[in-house]
Every structure is written in structure tokens, then in C-alpha cells.
């Protein structure tokens, strides 16, 4: 029948208000901004910088791993490289990535508000983040840390001769930025929704962000106290984690993973939310099973707090604790599986087009699913004993974090790019980059599953020669992946200034953010929108 009707933007009475980019060009207008959109961009700039540092460390590691011998760098240096990679990627890229950039930018727009609940707290959170980053950079410049991002004791608390305290301080401080962001989003989503936007009509990105925010505020403080305890132990030589002085090294592991497992849901849930938005927009259909997908986000948030012991199956914790944690880990995998089924079902009888955001979303579904089924293998006790602490785990979490979270982040950036800068990115270079990333990623990390099962442990600087062939494949993939990441850096920067101008709703998507100009006006909406339908109210067409 007829082609789908575009959702018209709300008419704007009177002269056009300035968009947020035009409202002020001084440094001060950026560094003292209270505008959530500008704060989102400040975060985007910061996390890109940290991503580059961490990626550089990974490049050095992968080059070193081309040969079984340790011939590029010393063991000391290698150990500091993988620690730097982990710490920077987890806390200075992944955790803030979608929440602090896309979340900050999009959430008020999506709920029809003028800003977040506490704009000054929002600005403060960026400065706190940068302060944490400064401490971490100091630690890096002074030679780095060699404990691994997991800081296991007693190595980190007693034995390591590196700048543990400075790096722990950096992460500790950055944690408060996370807490502030989560707190802000919780109150924003609760209290600033436009009239008519009930919980049952909330777009799925907001459900995911809400669940993520709860995890942010409840889990991060536990990390904070854990890092504080390591610092105190190093300072005063007390034995809270040192068995020679009566302490228990496993106490650290429990405290650390109590935060760090929910942390991985902080990293993936926002990505799932982005994928829901993109699939709906590019299939021109409501997401299948909306209520169940929303409930799944909340279930993942809650259950995610109960599974931390699956990182400790061989740690000498009780076998019965292991059994309980394994069971709970299987249960937390169910809601994620449901989402994958629902996304697939959304495509059925949709009107699908394959622009770049959709390519990233589809890539997410594939790669996250592979990561997910290998997660199921890891939850299986008997298998985990063999593959834990090997490259199997490394491959698993990179499938989720890079194949999942980073792909979703890229998809979201491209999807909301017109709203961010009022211009389109160039479509064909973007598609080529997406494909390059997808192929490079798989070549990098799939061989690592095999390496892990064969027995290659993680964090190994040198390895037996029978592992070389797969390592070479992995490094080859990494170089392709690196090229894939450089491409968006170039064309997105170019398109920010020179891209084709975009209208309010270039995708023809639903959602309040598309009912206002591109780039978004400074105060988001000329008048507060009123919501009268559910999300994804695409007209039903045969």
C-alpha cells in the first residue's frame, strides 16, 4: 500500500530558538555548562581520549603476542600494559560510555524535559570524572600498575611495587562520578517525565537506563570502600587482606566482585536499550514483547547482584557456594536470551532498512548472543574449572563488551548523530567501517575461544609455541579492528562540521527526541510535549 507516514515534528511557534551548539562559543560556555547535551559531549570527548590510550596498550600487547617469546617488551611492562588496558577500558570508557554520553544527551529529550533533575550535579560529575582520570594518568605516567584491573590481594595490597594507590584513587574518584550520574537519572526518570508519559509508555532505552542507574548507585559504593581498604592496607601495613597478618584474601574477592559483576550489567544494559530503539526505528515496528523486555531489564539489574561468586569457582570458596552461584548465573542469563528472541521477532513483518545504526544493532545481536552462550558455558561449573583464567574468558567478555557494548555505542552515536550535530554522517563510509569492525572483531576474538580451551592462560606475556598460530590470527584481526575504529573517528569529526544537514526526524522514528529540531534546541522543546500513545507507535501497514 502507501509508503509509511513520517511522524511530523511539533510546530514551533515564533522565531526559532538557538540550538544548543550555537548558544555560546566560549570555552566558559562549555566548561561551565549546565546543559545536559553539552555535558554529554564533554564526556564523549573524554572517553574517546581514554579509549585511545587503552587501545594503544592493547595494540602493543597484541603485537607482543605475535611470538611466543617476550621480545617486544619486558614482563614488567607487559603486566603494566594489560592492567592499564583493563582499568582504562572498564572505568574510563565502558562504564561511562553510553550512560554519560548518550544517556546524558538523550534522556531529557526522550522524556520531554528541559534538562536532568540536577544539572549542577551533572556538571560536577564530569569534573569528578576528569579528576579521577588525572590520578589514573598520573599513575600511568609514573610507570603504571602491574596488578591487573582486578587488583587481587595480597599481590596488590602487599607485594606489588607499582603505583597502586594512585590508580586506586583515580578509580575511587571516578566512581563518584558514576554514582552522581546514576542518581541524576533515577530522579530524572521518576520526576521529569512529560504529561502522559507513564511508565508503561516509556521507551525501552529509558527502562534500561533506569535499571542501569540503580546498579550504578548501589554497586559503585562497594567498589569505593574496597579500593579504600587496599589503599589503607598499603599505607599502614595492616592485614585486612593479608593472611600473614590474620587477614583473608578472599574477602577482597567477594567485595570486589560484588561490585564488578553488577558493573558488567552497567556496561551492557544501556547497549541493550540502544539496540531496542534502533531495531524499532529501522524496522518501523514496536519492539515485540515490550512489557517482557522492560521487565527483563529490571530482572537483569536485580539478579545481577546475586551472581558474583561465579568469578570465584576455583578460588577455594566452598563448592556449595559455587553451586548456588552457578544456578543464579543461569537464571540471570534467561532475561538476556528473551531480549534476543524479542528483537528477532520485532523484525518479523517489519519494514526494515539497513542504515548504519541498524547494522550495528544487528551486529550487536549476533555478537552478544555468541558472548552470551559462552557465558552459559562459563556458568557451567565443570566447564568453568577448565576455562576460567584462560583466553576463553577473555574472548567471552570481549564478545560482550566490544561485540556488544561498543557496537551498541557506535550504533547509538550514529542513530542520534543528527540530533547531536544537526548533520548526517556519510552513509557508505559508515557502513564500510561497521563491516570492518565486525570482521576485524571476529578475527581477533574468535581464535581466543580456542586458545582458552586449549589451555592458554590469560595475562601471559610468553606462551608455549603451540599457541602461536591462533595468536597470529588474533593479532591480524586486531589490526583490522583498529582500522575499523579509526574510520568513524575521521568521518564523524568531518561530518560534525561538514555533513549534510538533517531535519528534525531523518529516520522517521517515534520518540519525543525526534519531535524537536536537529541539532536540539538549547532548552529542548519550545513547549512541553504531551504524550498520548505508547512508544513505537508506528502506523500499522500491511
Amino acid at each position: 500500500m502507501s509508503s509509511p507516514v513520517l511522524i511530523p515534528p511539533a510546530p514551533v511557534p515564533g522565531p526559532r530558538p538557538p540550538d544548543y551548539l550555537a548558544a555560546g562559543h566560549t570555552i566558559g560556555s562549555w566548561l561551565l555548562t549546565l546543559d545536559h547535551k553539552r555535558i554529554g559531549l564533554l564526556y564523549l570527548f573524554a572517553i574517546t581520549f581514554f579509549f585511545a590510550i587503552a587501545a594503544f596498550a592493547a595494540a602493543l600487547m597484541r603485537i607482543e603476542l605475535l611470538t611466543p617469546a617476550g621480545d617486544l617488551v619486558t614482563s614488567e611492562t607487559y603486566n603494566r600494559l594489560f592492567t592499564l588496558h583493563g582499568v582504562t577500558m572498564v572505568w574510563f570508557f565502558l562504564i561511562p560510555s553510553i550512560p554519560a554520553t548518550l544517556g546524558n544527551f538523550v534522556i531529557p529529550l526522550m522524556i520531554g524535559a528541559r534538562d536532568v533533575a540536577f544539572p549542577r550535579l551533572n556538571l560536577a560529575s564530569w569534573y569528578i570524572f576528569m579528576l579521577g582520570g588525572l590520578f589514573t594518568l598520573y599513575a600511568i605516567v609514573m610507570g603504571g600498575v602491574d596488578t591487573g584491573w582486578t587488583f587481587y590481594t595480597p599481590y596488590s595490597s602487599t607485594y606489588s611495587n607499582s603505583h597502586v594507590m594512585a590508580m586506586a584513587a583515580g578509580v575511587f574518584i571516578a566512581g563518584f562520578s558514576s554514582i552522581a550520574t546514576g542518581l541524576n537519572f533515577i530522579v530524572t526518570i521518576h520526576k521529569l517525565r512529560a504529561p502522559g508519559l507513564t511508565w508503561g509508555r516509556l521507551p525501552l532505552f529509558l527502562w534500561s537506563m533506569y535499571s542501569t542507574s540503580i546498579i550504578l548507585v548501589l554497586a559503585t559504593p562497594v567498589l569505593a570502600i574496597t579500593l579504600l581498604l587496599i589503599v589503607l592496607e598499603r599505607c599502614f601495613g595492616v592485614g585486612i587482606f593479608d593472611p600473614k597478618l590474620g587477614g583473608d584474601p578472599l574477602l577482597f574477592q567477594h567485595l570486589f566482585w560484588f561490585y564488578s559483576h553488577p558493573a558488567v550489567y552497567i556496561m551492557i544494559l544501556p547497549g541493550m536499550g540502544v539496540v531496542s530503539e534502533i531495531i524499532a526505528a529501522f524496522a518501523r515496528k514496536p519492539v515485540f514483547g515490550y512489557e517482557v523486555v522492560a521487565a527483563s531489564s529490571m530482572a537483569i539489574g536485580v539478579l545481577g547482584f546475586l551472581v558474583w561468586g561465579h568469578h570465584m569457582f576455583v578460588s577455594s570458596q566452598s563448592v556449595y557456594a559455587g553451586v548456588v552461584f552457578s544456578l543464579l548465573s543461569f537464571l540471570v542469563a534467561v532475561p538476556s536470551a528473551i531480549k534476543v528472541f524479542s528483537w528477532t521477532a520485532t523484525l518479523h513483518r517489519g519494514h526494515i532498512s539497513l542504515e548504519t545504526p541498524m547494522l550495528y544493532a544487528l551486529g550487536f545481536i549476533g555478537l552478544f548472543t555468541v558472548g552470551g552462550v559462552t557465558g552459559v558455558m562459563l556458568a557451567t561449573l565443570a566447564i568453568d574449572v577448565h576455562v576460567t583464567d584462560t583466553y576463553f574468558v577473555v574472548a567471552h567478555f570481549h564478545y560482550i563488551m566490544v561485540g556488544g557494548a561498543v557496537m551498541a555505542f557506535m550504533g547509538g552515536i550514529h542513530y542520534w548523530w543528527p540530533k547531536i550535530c544537526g548533520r548526517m554522517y556519510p552513509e557508505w563510509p559508515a557502513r564500510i567501517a561497521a563491516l570492518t569492525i565486525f570482521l576485524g572483531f571476529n578475527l581477533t576474538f574468535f581464535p581466543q575461544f580456542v586458545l582458552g580451551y586449549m589451555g592458554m592462560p590469560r595475562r601471559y606475556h610468553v606462551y608455549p609455541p603451540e599457541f602461536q598460530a591462533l595468536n597470529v590470527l588474533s593479532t591480524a584481526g586486531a589490526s583490522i579492528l583498529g582500522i575499523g575504529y579509526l574510520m568513524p573517528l575521521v568521518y564523524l569529526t568531518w561530518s560534525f562540521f561538514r555533513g549534510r544537514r538533517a531535519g528534525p526526524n531523518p529516520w522517521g522514528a517515534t520518540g519525543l527526541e525526534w519531535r524537536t529540531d536537529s541539532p536540539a534546541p538549547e532548552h529542548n522543546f519550545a513547549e512541553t510535549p504531551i504524550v498520548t500513545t505508547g512508544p513505537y507507535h508506528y502506523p500499522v501497514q500491511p
Partner: protein
Amino acid sequence: MSNTLTHPAASPYSDREQHAVANHLGMWTFIATEILFFGGLFASYSLYRWAYPAAFVTGSKHLEFWIGTLNTGVLLTSSLFMALADLAVRAGRRGALRWSLLATWLLGALFLGLKFYEYHLAAKEGHVPGAHFRLEVPQAPQVELFMFLYFAMTGLHAAHMIIGLGAIAWLLWLNHRRRLGADHDAPVSMVALYWHFVDCVWIFLYPLLYLVR
């Protein structure tokens, strides 16, 4: 004109009540994070008390029981005055607000003064864990562990008290500038909530540290 710290735009709220409700939700969420923050220390305490009960009794006996008990009274009284301050601001009584805030602040400062005196005594007697620990008792390393938890938990609590004193001083300043009243009582109720929470943490710390027998 851009929306900045020096030139803030109109707030995202449609009315004052919405803003007040948002502030409250924000404060309670913050309290939740604080519970988890102290929670890690309480978890560590629980583990080691279960593992070394005798050492914990020994350690507890070496604390300054009377200072701890006195401090409990001081802090509870300060919370009383803080509650009175909350009532005063809602009734719009600026004078009463000033006195009750001042009383709260002074009692809080008294608490900290007694606390630091207590730390000083502990340092003199070699109870501070680390290089200068010198308690000659059986299970000394485990008693040292108790002392570490004592200093960490009360120290973290004291840090929160200091922040609280700063917040109360801010309220006194706001009141001085006539920026508090029945229709603008959110700052007071939020600081009050924070102060009561810090008091609550002490209510748990006191028996766990001073009353182990």
C-alpha cells in the same frame, strides 16, 4: 545566552513542589549509596568477628568506653536539635532555626573533638594499627585487625560528620541571608536527613565496637 553555572537557565521543573519531591528522592537515593558504602566495612567486620571472637572482645575492651558512650549521647542530642531545626524552618521561625542549627553544629563539633581526643589516647597507648602498634595481648595480629576496623569505621564516620558540619554551616549562612523559610525548606530537610543517617550509622557502630563482650 548559554545555560551555564554563572548564567543558569530556568530550572527543568514546572513547579516548586516537583522540585522539592525530586530533591527528596535524590537525597534518599544518596542515602542508599551510603548504606552500601559503609556496608563493605560492616561485611568485613562481620567476617572477622566470626573468625576471631576472642580478639574482638580484647580489642573492644581496649577502647575508651566512656568517651564512646558519651559521644553517643552527644550525637543523639544533636539529632534532636536537627529535628527541631527542621520543624522551625517549616514553621518559618528563623530565630529558632538559627539556635537549633547552632546547637546541632556545636554538639557535632563536640563529638568530633571527643573522637579525636580518643584517637590521640589510642595513639599514645600504641593502639594505632601499623608500624607503631604495640599491644601486648594474645592474638595481637587479630586485635590489630579489630583496631584497624575500629579506626576505618569510625574514621569514615568522622569524615561524614565533618562534611555534615560543613553542610550545617552552609545552612546557617543561607539562613543569615534570609534564603530559608517555610516555602524554601528543602536544604534544611535534606541536610537533616543526611545528619540523621550519619547518626544512625553511629548507632550501629557503637555496640559493634564498644560493646563486644
